[in-house]
């Protein structure tokens, strides 16, 4: 394997990993902004492999395409922000799963089941008492997962 091809392989693998991460993020995250960022990550993966190919082939067409991708992604980001803002104004939440009113007529609605926080069954290790007064932390509302 010539070094050129090896280099290409490496770039392509990184690009594929970026694309795959974006894909997984797109499917697993429910925050609309994070979803969009995941899609952007997919585009970055594509851009990376395009640039790699461009270098390998010694042709600038791929890099030109990357510049267009970035420009278009910027447009889409603007639209996405506008859309997310209006959706947030209506529902007050950024959760994409809230938006499933349009579906087959007889299908049950999606019910969000709260996932309980993981707690350790082991005995907590003994700790030293801290000096001063511990602050009062308000309890977190758990009808949705705030950190999705």
């Amino acid at each position, binding site marked *: 394997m010539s070094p050129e091809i090896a280099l290409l392989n490496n770039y392509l693998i990184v690009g594929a990993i970026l694309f795959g991460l*974006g894909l997984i993020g797109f499917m697993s995250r429910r925050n*609309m902004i994070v979803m969009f960022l995941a899609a952007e990550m997919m*585009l970055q993966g*594509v851009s990376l*492999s395009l640039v790699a190919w461009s270098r390998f082939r010694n042709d600038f067409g*791929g890099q030109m395409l990357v510049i267009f991708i970035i420009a278009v992604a910027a447009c889409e980001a603007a639209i996405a922000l506008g859309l997310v803002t209006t*959706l947030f104004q209506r529902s007050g939440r950024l959760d994409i799963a809230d938006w499933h009113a349009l579906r087959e007529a007889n299908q049950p609605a999606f019910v969000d089941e709260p996932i309980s926080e993981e707690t350790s069954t082991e005995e907590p290790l003994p700790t030293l008492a801290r000096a001063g007064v511990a602050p009062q932390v308000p309890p977190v509302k758990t009808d949705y997962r705030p950190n999705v």
Partner: protein
Amino acid sequence: MTYQTVLQLLPEILLVAFAVAIYVGSAFSDAQRGWNRAALAGVVLAACALATVHYHPAGGYPLFQDGLALFARWMALALAALYILLSFKPLPGGGTPEMFGSLLLIVAGVMLAAAAADLVLIFVSLELISIPTYILLYLGRRDALQQESAAKYFYLSVLSSAILLYGFSFLYGLAGSTDLHNIHDVFLDAGGLPQGFELFAKLAAVLAIAGLSFRLTAVPFHFYAPDVYQGTTHANAALLSVIPKLAGLAVLVRIAWWAMPDGGHLALGIVAALAVLSMTLGNVLALWQDNLRRLMAYSSIAHAGYLLLGLAAALAMRNIQPGAWDGIGAMMFYLCVYAAATIGTFAVFEHLGGSTRRVEGIDELAGLGREKPTVAAMLAAFMFSLTGIPILAGFWGKFQIFGSALSVASDAETAFLRPLFIALAVVGVLNAAVSAAYYLRIVGAMYFRAPLGKFRAEGGTGALLAAALCCLLVLGLGLYPRPLLRASDRARPQLEIVGQVSNLSHPK
């Protein structure tokens, strides 16, 4: 970039210029009327400009001037005129100028996509379709369902764009050039693919077809369609059911059929599977629908299946035998008659609705035959055409599609594909029979049930005019299909392209 290129691009340039003018003009004016006429003027001017573009059967960079490009560009302009008529009434919630501006941009995008001979141009033109579509989906009604449908379309469209682009990156990597001619040559040269690059060819084929299938609403990339159609306006649903299909098909033909000559055997299986899945799933799910737009969405999915059947035939028989039928011509013909019937249907729905209330369910059409016989007759004609009943245009469409599949089956060169294509044709015919059930349900509701209430029919005469034009098309093409058959037959791009032709048009 030469003077000739500018001339070739003049229709699109005019459309974009009008769109920009409308966008900018609307910022300084509160008027809601008159924009439709401006948009129509833009379309007419673009048509005049398009009339000066010459037909050139082979080559061309960065734009093709072959039959496919010209056919799709003319069709896009015709569709644009129909849409402007269909949505001639200003939007109740404002945003009318933006709507027409976006419409013109979308049409420009479709025209570019059909003619583009470069991956960059294809990508940009496809985005030129997508981005205004997001805006269009968001305009119109401002209720939760509409917003939900806009969000669904947006996110899934972004995903599909990414998938398509990833496919493009491999295509680019294989050829080392974004020029489709070069990609074509790389695939064409015997042993041209470097060792170990078959993987990339397969990846490119699958990803590109998958990305474009989203626009075709082919199963399993169809999921957005029913929800989005149901949530949006009639005009938008009409747009979504035809325009992306036209662009997607043209690009699919260019990439999967034209630019990847050896990709045929890669793509054939996928396209055939997509065709069968789309036809079947679209039809069986449409049987259950009560919402008219949702029903039409499934119908649109099913018709995407028929279209892909034509593409499969074209992929199987790249060198058309004399006397056999061309799958691509059949596909383009089918798309035209499908577009006429579908836009007509939505135009009728739009016409029947009021400014405050839309026609939603099949029940609302009950007794239409008695109350409004002309409109009902038109809708019945569209339904029969979509079913494929003879003497209406839809019959010839199905006939062409199934004929092209059968001509693959009967050709000696492709004898090994005979079982596949006979099976495909049989599935297609069975599906056409199933589809009759839900189309005729609408006809039955119109003619055999008592009206539930008064028909307001406040959708305006523009929508009625659009419906009448579509009805004329459906009837006229049914009785005299030859002109369109001839035109669609010319839409098959020429295969005999060699290095020197592309070198001539290349700056290198």
